[in-house]
């Protein structure tokens, strides 16, 4: 819901829309912008408007309704796009001139878009162009909106319909003529232009609408340059308005300008040319510039994204190449170190060759010095033999195995010997046989575990 008017700011926000009502003299301008999701409105002095928006960018002006055809159409459609396609044909039947000759804008009849009913505002292109030409010297507004659309939208936002049984009327009165809007349940049904000060015509229209739509009560909202308490009193004195609730809009003089600014702000958020009759004549230069900027931004984003994508992959490729080169160098270095010098081959063949070279150039006697001697385990094994009263007849030790033979008292003694061998990380393989003396003759091998096949 639009906010009340604020005091004019020193500098208009860049994204503010300015509604210009040219019916009063001098014209009235109101700016609308969003701050933290809330709509702000402020009057704009005309000199500041000329300074800050000389080209009419983000400005909205009203098209007076005396030359605009307003038709409510209810095409049998499911979607808005389909409704617009069907409604064009329906509109052509109703208009007194070919629809191709008109600038048309479509607006949903239901503000909440619950139905596909549309209101078409159409104006002869020649008339619109002549009006644009007549406005030479004034601000060339980017949006040209039918006054009825902006005013009705404004009224339904300010005073939502309480029920469907009340006739809603809005009279925008200025010095030349008045625009009378009629509807119910928040839906605009009719738009009439009445001569200025012809209250009888307004009264007749009220009676016609109330009778046609069978509405027992009515409410009338007044706005515009000449809407004041005197007009209210004059209306109340008219018998046709005896049962009508008549009220004067707050900020009645700036009402249309504020309605235009608020409508433009909402249309921008919707991202469409909805309600803009000027769109049919081609885009305003400011809109074209804005569209070009958006296009350029999109193009820049797309190009940047492409460059980033390709650049990232290229950088990764370079990094991988460096890593591969480093690994290759490391491999060559390692192979050369193993082989004791550079090799004429590379890759897996070089590794095989380096292994063979290593085997050739390493002296086995020197390597044997690095291996733990099996004889170092002898004290432990001999202690076990002595403790269990075993006797050894032979003992042979080399680099890989210990071979021993002798006599043992029992199988338990041999088990202890095996366990001692395992503790020394030797794999025992001991066989025994009983002798006539009752003792066991044993022989076996304690093999270094690393030497096992």
């Amino acid at each position, binding site marked *: 819901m639009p906010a009340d008017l604020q005091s004019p700011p020193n500098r208009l926000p860049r994204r503010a829309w300015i509604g210009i009502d040219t019916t009063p003299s001098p014209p009235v301008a109101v700016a609308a912008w969003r701050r933290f999701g809330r709509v702000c409105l402020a009057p704009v002095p005309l000199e500041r408007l000329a300074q800050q928006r000389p080209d009419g960018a983000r400005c909205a002006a009203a098209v007076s309704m005396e030359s605009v055809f307003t038709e409510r159409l209810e095409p049998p459609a499911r979607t808005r796009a389909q409704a617009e396609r069907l409604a064009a044909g329906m509109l052509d039947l109703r208009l007194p001139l070919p629809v191709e000759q008109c600038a048309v804008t479509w607006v949903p009849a239901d503000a909440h878009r619950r139905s596909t009913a549309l209101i078409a505002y159409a104006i002869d292109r020649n008339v619109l162009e002549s009006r644009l030409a007549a406005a030479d010297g004034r601000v060339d507004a980017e949006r040209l909106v039918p006054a009825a659309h902006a005013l009705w939208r404004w009224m339904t936002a300010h005073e939502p319909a309480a029920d469907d049984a009340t006739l809603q009327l809005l009279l925008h009165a200025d010095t030349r003529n008045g625009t009378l809007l009629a509807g119910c349940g928040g839906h605009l049904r009719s738009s009439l232009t009445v001569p200025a000060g012809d209250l009888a015509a307004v009264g007749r229209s009220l009676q016609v609408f109330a009778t046609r739509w069978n509405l027992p009560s009515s409410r009338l909202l007044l706005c515009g340059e000449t809407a004041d308490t005197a007009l209210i009193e004059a209306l109340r004195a008219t018998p046709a308005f005896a049962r009508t609730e008549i009220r004067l809009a707050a900020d009645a003089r700036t009402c249309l300008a504020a309605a235009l600014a608020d409508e433009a702000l909402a249309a921008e958020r919707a991202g469409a040319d909805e309600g803009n009759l000027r769109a049919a004549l081609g885009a305003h230069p400011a809109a074209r510039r804005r569209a070009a900027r958006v*296009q*350029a931004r*999109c*193009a*820049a984003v*797309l*190009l940047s*994204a*492409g*460059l980033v*994508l*390709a650049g*990232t*992959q*290229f950088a*990764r*490729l370079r990094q*991988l*190449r460096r*890593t*591969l080169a480093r*690994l*290759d160098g*490391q*491999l060559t270095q*390692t*192979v050369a*170190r*193993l082989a004791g010098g550079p090799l004429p081959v590379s890759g*897996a063949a070089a*590794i095989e060759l*380096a*292994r063979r070279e*290593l085997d*050739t*150039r*390493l*002296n*086995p*006697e*020197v*390597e*044997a*010095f*690095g291996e733990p*001697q099996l*004889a*170092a385990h*002898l004290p432990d094994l001999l202690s076990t033999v002595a403790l269990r009263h075993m*006797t*050894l*007849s*032979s*003992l*042979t*030790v*080399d*680099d890989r195995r210990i071979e021993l033979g*002798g006599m043992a008292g029992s199988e338990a003694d041999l088990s202890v010997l095996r366990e001692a061998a395992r503790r020394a990380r030797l794999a025992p393989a001991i066989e025994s046989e009983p002798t006539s003396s009752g003792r066991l003759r044993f022989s076996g091998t304690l093999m270094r575990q690393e030497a096992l096949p």
Partner: protein
Amino acid sequence: MKGLLRLGPTGAALAGFLLAALIALQLHGQNRARQEEIRHRQRLLATLTPELERLERYEAIERAIRDALYRDALLPALPRDVPVPEQRETKRLPAAGGWRGLQMELGWPRIATRHALEAISYCTTNPAAWRLAHLQIEALETAGNCRLQLTLERVEASVEE
């Protein structure tokens, strides 16, 4: 492409983006191949780790042997209690990698077991430049006596070095 260019700067940018995306896709394929190569190289390098460790061990032994050679290059002198071996033979092994093995075989056909164990103990622990490569002890029927054979080994720098 012409259809895209007809769309104006956005179309041209879209064409550029598509081109860049194609290039990126191509590069991505190359990257995957490179990554596979890198993993292959890393696996190759990993397979060489045992050989490298073996070489490092070998070089450490070489350094230790060199020190020991210069400090104690003489033949090991057995303890005074141990009788002089009746068999004594020195062999020179084939040279490899700048080193030549030198083996000394000591044999006692009959030695008191006590002295034999003393000799074994001495040869296992004392001579720095020598290592006990082979030991064979065999009890004789005469109690307290045995047959003993010891093979001591050392290396020396070969003449070619």
